[in-house]
């Protein structure tokens, strides 16, 4: 069931009437799950992949769940939409954006009997869990592959906003690249948007013109990868498998995979074992996967697969010390490693990354 906001208004009224009736067959009723999306289902990136996850949950749990998804909800509309979902008897509500983190806390306090889950939030409540994937593991691998593929030894990075998620990704790409070739350098352009194909394309052009021959992107449209294809260099896809946008340039994509997590959380609700957990799953958790390697030699593929195995097993820790920041100060020493909270709050670049924060 895929509803827009107007439909659910009428639906909520009908449901409110039906819940007033005595409920004899309570056990046989499907559990209702609500999902709130920040973008349209068809954004071909972040929200699309949450929708794929919802469908996977329905596939796994069958008649045990019934989902109501509302797309393109701007933060100011969030409270009203969630209130409607609660009135429609949703017991578990996934709010799939960091922009919803504070609003979700507010709604969780208002509806203590409903369980909430916020994607990429940073703290929990008794009825609010948070979940995210360790996308930086994919970034480390991108750095390794970039260092093998680059002739000019320059990586171009189309970034959205200077938030910790993006900053630690840039740091991690370079960690990966330096593990192969310490000569590697990075150039970053801030697009100041998660999704603005025109600006993303112009940013990619600027990076390529400056001599970058590998593009990483931390924005959601396929425009930078398309540019890489047009200019005959290599690039990586974002959020979903973008091979078809650049058959000759695509190396791999990080593919978000929320479905199994959603299914297990809904199952926990049905079993009565749900707890407000803080889930941050890496490659080994299956919360994100990698698109098949393309345009790589068998030797390069073998190295990449080795790195993937190392990341999965924990043998490679992208945040192991020593870490020195741009100013030359030692953040942590040899033998130490950053905690999850420190990674989530990272607001500095490493030494050797000649990138400035946008003013």
């Amino acid at each position, binding site marked *: 069931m895929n509803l827009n906001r107007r439909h659910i208004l009428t639906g909520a009224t009908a449901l409110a009437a039906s819940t007033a009736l005595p409920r004899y067959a309570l056990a046989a009723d499907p559990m209702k799950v609500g999902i709130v999306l920040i973008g*349209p289902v*068809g*954004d*071909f990136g972040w929200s699309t992949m949450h929708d794929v996850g919802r469908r996977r949950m329905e596939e796994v749990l069958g008649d045990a769940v019934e989902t109501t998804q509302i797309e393109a909800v701007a933060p100011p509309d969030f409270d009203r939409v969630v209130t409607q979902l609660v009135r429609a008897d949703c017991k578990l509500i996934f709010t799939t954006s960091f922009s919803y983190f504070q609003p979700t806390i507010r709604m969780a306090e208002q509806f203590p009997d409903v369980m909430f889950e916020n994607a990429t939030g940073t703290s929990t409540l008794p009825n609010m869990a948070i979940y995210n994937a360790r996308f930086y593991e994919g970034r480390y691998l991108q750095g390794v592959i970039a260092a093998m593929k680059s002739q000019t030894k320059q990586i*171009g990075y189309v970034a959205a906003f200077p938030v910790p998620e993006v900053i630690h990704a840039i740091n991690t790409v370079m960690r990966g690249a330096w593990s192969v070739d310490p000569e590697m350098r990075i*150039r*970053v*352009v*801030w697009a*100041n*948007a998660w*999704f*603005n*194909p*025109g*600006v*993303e*394309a*112009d*940013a990619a*052009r*600027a*990076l390529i*013109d*400056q001599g*970058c021959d590998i593009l990483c992107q931390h924005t959601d*449209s*396929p*425009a930078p990868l*398309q540019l890489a294809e*047009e200019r005959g260099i290599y690039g990586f896809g974002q959020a979903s498998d973008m091979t*078809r*946008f650049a058959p000759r340039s695509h190396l791999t994509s990080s593919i978000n995979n929320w479905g199994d997590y959603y299914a297990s959380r809904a199952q926990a609700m049905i079993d009565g074992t749900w707890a407000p957990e803080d889930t941050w799953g890496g490659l080994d958790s299956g919360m994100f996967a990698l698109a098949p390697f393309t345009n790589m030699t068998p030797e390069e593929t073998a190295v990449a697969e080795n790195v993937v195995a190392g990341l999965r097993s924990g043998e490679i820790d992208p945040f192991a010390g020593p870490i020195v920041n741009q100013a030359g100060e030692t953040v942590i020493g040899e033998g130490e490693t950053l905690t999850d909270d420190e990674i989530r709050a990272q607001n500095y670049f490493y030494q050797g990354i*000649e*990138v*400035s*924060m*946008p*003013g």
Partner: protein
Amino acid sequence: MTLAVAIMLTVITAATPLLIAAIGELVTERSGVLNLGVEGMMIMGAASGVAVAIVTGSSILGVLAAIGAGMALAAIFALLTLGLAANQYASGLALTIFGLGLSGVIGAPFVGVQREGIRRITIPWLSDLPVIGPILFRQDPFVYGSILLVVGVSWFLWRSKAGLILRACGENPVSAHALGYNVLRIRLYAVLFGGACAGVAGAYLSLVLTPFWTAGMTAGRGWIALAIVVFASWLPLRAMFGAYLFGGLIILQLHAQTAGVAVPSQFLAALPYLLTIVALTLIMAWRRGSGAGSIAPAGLGQTFTPDR
């Protein structure tokens, strides 16, 4: 290819949609009609262009559809402001909001559909010249078209009788009417021309610059085109200068970032509008000093109802 040439090429592609839309709006405003719906007409052109190009497989049909979509929206605007003498400012703003919404509906089935962009035309021999070869003789058809448009509109407005009449409708519609010219019909043609140009500018975005559809992909370019018209003080050649200046600012800011220079990108995003205000202030101060009147068409933004 040197970096300077590469930057020039990118500036041209960034400036071309701004220029095409600005020239269309310039003609509309010269006839005395202020259409604030450029952004809406532009994005309708982008959506219709890519939709038809994908369905038919023909980029030319896509461009024609974009022209049609821009003109259709302009026709609605003309119906309101010319036919019903509604307020031009409110109607234009409504047109932008309407276009942004409707384009999302038209484009919805085409989200994420991949399509080959329109190729560049390479002029043999000349394109092999150093520096000017790639800049002047290896461009897509829209770039050549935009230059022709500037030259053509310049000629039309100042060297043809029809252009003189059109400007008269913008300066003093009552006099033009008294002389026996059908002001409303002339304004209708000007509005439709503006719509067609905005449609083409939109098609340039969705068929050349980033060859796919996403909602809201014009991202404010229609507003920059409106600012360019004012910045250019309603002169086509100055509009060309303005478009390349504003396009250049966008691109240079990106290059400054890649070089690790800290640039306040929000400030640079506001710069086109700021420059417009500065240019307008300077021009007005100078003209007041010399005793001349306003540079805007005197009848701009005023509704005209012929007395019967």
